[in-house]
């Protein structure tokens, strides 16, 4: 009783701030926390009921891990996990490499005006939607009108059917992803380079260090902590794929599924196209749980390296 009184008093004292968090709190409840118990669908044979969500949840039968069993028995399970992991690994490694490279080169360019112009150009793709990007890609890869096939015929080669050959897509997706993300990704590294104490470079210059030695022995070591942190944080999200990239850029082409289907697109198709709600939820839950573990592990490692950079 006394505790309750004390609590009410606290609520009263904080009522203005509580009112402030209220809209956001309601939003989190409705759009983030309400769906969480919905993940139980993964353990049910979900049947839509006319009486709404709660009724459907209660009336549907429990099936234990059946949905997961079905999921992992399909070939899809292997493909989507493999694709998600391999693509994201490539994105992380190449993305980090090029973002750091671009940041270093931009910071070394003496003409600051031109550097700014370059940077503005590189930033552009980040602001465009995947739908727009898919149009760009199509203007290059279109079978009859595309630039690439025009080029191939011009040098005397046969045109390729880009949207039906799986072998090209790993490269195409990686290139498109880098094209869209590198300029934006370099910002943090550039900020870190700009933040390096100038006296290090001055001291190195006085000792007669060349530009390469300065980059190798000052710039790179100084930004390595940031690189490591960003890298590890990215690994935490390795189980989540960019839906837009894998859905829009290949134009949802069925023939390309073996190399373009990732967990996120699989879940979407299970929900909206094939209607396999149970299996789709199972895949989603699997992704969420593994993602959760990965983020926690990641944060733990980051915390060990540098407490400041940890998420929590």
């Amino acid at each position: 009783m006394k505790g309750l009184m004390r609590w009410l008093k606290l609520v009263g004292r904080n009522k203005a701030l509580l009112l402030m968090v209220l809209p956001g709190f309601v939003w989190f409840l409705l759009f983030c926390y309400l769906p969480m118990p919905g993940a139980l669908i993964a353990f049910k044979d979900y049947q839509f009921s006319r009486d709404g969500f709660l009724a459907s949840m209660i009336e549907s039968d429990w099936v234990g891990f059946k949905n997961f069993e079905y999921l992992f028995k399909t070939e899809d399970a292997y493909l989507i996990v493999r694709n998600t992991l391999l693509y994201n690994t490539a994105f992380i490694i190449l993305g980090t490499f090029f973002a750091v490279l671009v940041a270093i080169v931009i910071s070394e360019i003496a003409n600051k005006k031109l550097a700014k112009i370059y940077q503005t150009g590189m930033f552009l793709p980040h602001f465009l939607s995947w739908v727009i990007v898919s149009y760009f890609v199509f203007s290059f890869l279109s079978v009859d009108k595309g630039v690439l096939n025009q080029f191939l015929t011009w040098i005397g080669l046969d045109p390729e059917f880009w949207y039906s050959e799986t072998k090209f897509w790993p490269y195409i997706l990686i290139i498109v992803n880098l094209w869209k993300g590198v300029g934006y990704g370099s910002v943090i590294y550039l900020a870190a380079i700009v933040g390096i104490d100038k006296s290090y470079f001055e001291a190195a210059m006085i000792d007669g260090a060349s530009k390469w030695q300065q980059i190798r022995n000052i710039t790179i070591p100084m930004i390595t902590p940031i690189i490591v942190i960003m890298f590890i944080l990215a690994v935490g999200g390795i189980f989540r794929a960019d839906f837009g990239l894998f859905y829009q850029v290949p134009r949802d082409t069925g023939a390309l599924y073996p190399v373009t289907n990732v967990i996120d697109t699989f879940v979407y198709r299970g929900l909206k196209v094939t209607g396999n709600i149970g299996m789709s939820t199972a895949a989603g839950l699997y992704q969420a749980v593994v993602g959760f573990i990965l983020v926690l592990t990641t944060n733990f490692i980051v915390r060990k390296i540098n407490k400041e950079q940890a998420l929590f």
Partner: protein
Amino acid sequence: MEHRTAVDPHPQANKHAAKKLRNIHHLSPFWNAIAHLGIGLFSLACVYPFLFVVVLSFTDETALAKNGYSIIPEKWSVDAYTYLFKTGDQLLRSYGVTLFITVVGTLLTLIIVSLYAYAISRSYFHFRGFFSFVAFFTMLFGGGLVPSYIVVTQVLHLKDTMWALILPMCVSAFSILIMRTFFKTMVPDAIIESGKIDGAGEFRVFLYLVLPISLPGLATIGLFAALGYWNDWFNALLYIDDARLLPLQSLLMKVETNIQFILQNAGLAGAGDRTDMVRTLPAETTRMAMVVLATVPIIFAYPFFQRYFVQGLTIGAVKE
């Protein structure tokens, strides 16, 4: 540090040396050229596809059909645009939808996020820990797409409403994180205290003291939100079947596979007209013209965005 500022016996000679050393600070002419070439080419490659699509949209349809996509068209034409402005009912409507969700969504985001972030940025807020956890836990774990879809469609009944395009993406823990950091660093509790001593309530303080000095932070998350809404097609893919509610990006998606779509919803007077339209429809160039029209607002706004985004990224990267 002290020993470095010793008195220099030859100030003149040192000045000379410093000038010489300055050159070492730059890349050698050869590597400088390589750097410009590499970065310049990449930068061009980032802008080029857009320029290409602009050119395509101004290409004559028959020339395009004959020669394929080409950066220097055989024949220029504005047919695609005149066509779009004649039959663009669906395009106009989609523009309207996108504008509406961008404006309303961004405002909602700004209101909800800044209020929430402000409250959890105050050290004297007793329930700070709990509400921070509520927000940041969502960065770690979510119910997944299917449960979210079911909640939005069956519990909240938002399918085929404008709200399905606005609400699901209106708050994010990430923007709250950015704003909280911003409030924490920019607005010390002492300022709030002084406001309160002058007799202002919490909301008054927030409105008249906190918000004016937080404009850069608000601009950052506002731009993030606006860009998100303008570019969104995913929520429409999930929740919108009604053509009247189709935002611009989704319209582009539909048109990509089916140019007929714009015709079916063009609201033309007679059926006879319609078949005629199909025949004379500048299909390829029209698509490209639509891409251009959907992108132009961003192209013009983004050099201005860029500064704030860079700022926002840097703010978000700083902790506590």
